[in-house]
């Protein structure tokens, strides 16, 4: 079993491996990623938050360890409230973990690393008081990028998502889908080796979501960036990811890891392939218990009067 050293220590055992695995290789790594250097190393990360009541603490992440290889597309999948976004924010240096270490390359993360990591959030973070192009310029200034070519790079990033005609629009003149395309383009424009995406398509309708997912697959196949993508959509995870990390209900732990052996860019035909449904069904089987647990925990919390999302 090609289970790699520290990372899947206890988590692998929690999962009953008897289910039909299809072409997904459990706990393995895709051929592409196996030889690549480690881009992001998450080591025993634990996160506690203060609860609503004084003295009450919520354990959001419990001793999570994970290695992400350069060029890998990794999806974090799990029931809502399982700490996926928290983990992403810790990797990006926006949250400080209670204990454990995150490394990007050889550097320990102690805050945002704008030269290494770009974020794409669930909601548009384009500043509504600037035009699309001004937003790109401001982002480039934030990064302290000296490049005078920002305009050309911005336009080519916009072209890659088909939004070059909207460079001089204000964000609020655009639809949610258009804004998310531009947020994606900005993520690419920032020219970092790593992009962290926190449910970037969650606010979109199903059709837009599928088209954008397809575009993303094409785009990223070209750039070779390392992507960590948080989602709760099974289909999205299977369609996009080289590797899917399934997390447990709170406290978040890694429950299982699945590999999707399908080269990028992926065509929509992949979604129709039997393998696609097999992996998806398998994911669903893993997740089902966790979702039930989450629902049960929420009921319990509601009965105690301490619901926290």
């Amino acid at each position, binding site marked *: 079993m090609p289970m790699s050293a520290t990372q899947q220590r206890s988590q692998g055992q929690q999962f009953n491996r008897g289910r039909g695995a299809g072409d997904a290789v459990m706990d393995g790594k895709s051929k592409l990623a196996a030889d690549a250097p480690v881009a992001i190393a998450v080591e025993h990360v634990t996160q506690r938050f203060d609860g609503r009541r004084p003295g009450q603490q919520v354990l959001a992440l419990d001793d999570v360890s994970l290695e992400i290889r350069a060029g890998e597309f990794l999806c974090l999948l799990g029931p809502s409230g399982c700490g996926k976004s928290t983990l992403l924010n810790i990797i990006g*240096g*926006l949250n400080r973990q209670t204990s454990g270490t995150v490394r990007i390359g050889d550097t320990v993360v102690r805050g945002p690393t704008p*030269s290494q*990591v770009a974020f794409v959030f669930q909601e548009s973070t384009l500043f509504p008081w600037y035009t699309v192009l001004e937003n790109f310029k401001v982002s480039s200034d934030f990064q302290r990028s000296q490049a005078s070519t920002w305009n050309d790079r911005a336009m080519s990033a916009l072209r890659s998502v088909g939004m070059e005609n909207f460079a001089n629009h204000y964000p609020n003149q655009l639809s949610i889908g258009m804004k998310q395309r531009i947020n994606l383009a900005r993520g690419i424009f920032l020219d970092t080796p790593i992009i962290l995406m926190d449910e970037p398509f969650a606010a979109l309708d199903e059709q837009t979501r599928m088209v954008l997912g397809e575009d993303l697959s094409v785009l990223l196949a070209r750039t070779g960036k390392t992507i960590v993508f948080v989602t709760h959509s099974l289909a999205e995870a299977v369609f996009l990811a080289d590797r899917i990390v399934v997390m447990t209900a709170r406290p978040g732990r890694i429950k299982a890891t699945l590999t999707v052996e399908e080269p990028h860019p992926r065509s929509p035909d992949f979604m129709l392939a039997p393998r696609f449904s097999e992996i998806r069904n398998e994911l669903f089987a893993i997740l089902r218990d966790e979702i039930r647990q989450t629902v049960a925990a929420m009921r319990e919390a509601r009965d105690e009067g301490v619901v926290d999302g």
Partner: protein
Amino acid sequence: MAERSALDSSGIVPRSIQVGFVAAVIGLWFFLTLGGHVHLLLLPDPVKVWYAMVQLAVSGQLWAAAKVTLLSILKAYFTAVIPGLAIGFLVSRTLRSVQFFEPIFSGIFSVPLTLFFPLFIFFFGIGPNSKIAYGGLYAFFPVVITSIAAFANTDQLYIRAAQSMGASQLQLFRRVYFPSALPGILTGLRIATVVCVASVLGGETISSTNGVGHAIALQAELMETARMYAWVVYVVVAVVALNMALSVIETRTERK
């Protein structure tokens, strides 16, 4: 925005209604005075007031008094706005300080500071300084109250995004906090303008040695009503012009 079109005053129809309103006021004035419905000592006819206006302008009295008043208003305005914005931003930094300071500022602003006007005369003398201090303090409150709210309402999402891209503290302020708060800040600045004009002119009418407010009060005491109205018309015209200028600035900074 639907709201904007409803409030938009630049169309042909609203404009003609506004011009018609001014014409009606002047017409009513002619009617009341020339028709003998009002005593001419209480309200002189518009022609007489017009002559008084010309005389004030030609003799140089207009400019002499206006200079004092305008300078006082300007000084009062900056006395209010600069600390108002700075303190507003600092208070908005933490929820605790917002919860502590906001009710204090709102509470003081609801007290009519006119009650304390004599104190300003005691401390700053009868010259322009007492009017500047009075107007400056009065206008400080709307600026600080609106800017606390405006800065504190900056969406955390934009701040996190900017931080993830490596924004410095200065960049955060220039590119995120300030533009985000700008509409709220402008509202405060507009109120501050009105408050400054009203309190400086008001202060001058109550107690002063110079300025437009002083001239109005003096002419009223001397029963020189034509001259008094001439001053009043100048003030009204100036205030309307100022208001129009502010509207233009606000429309330009508004985003689609």
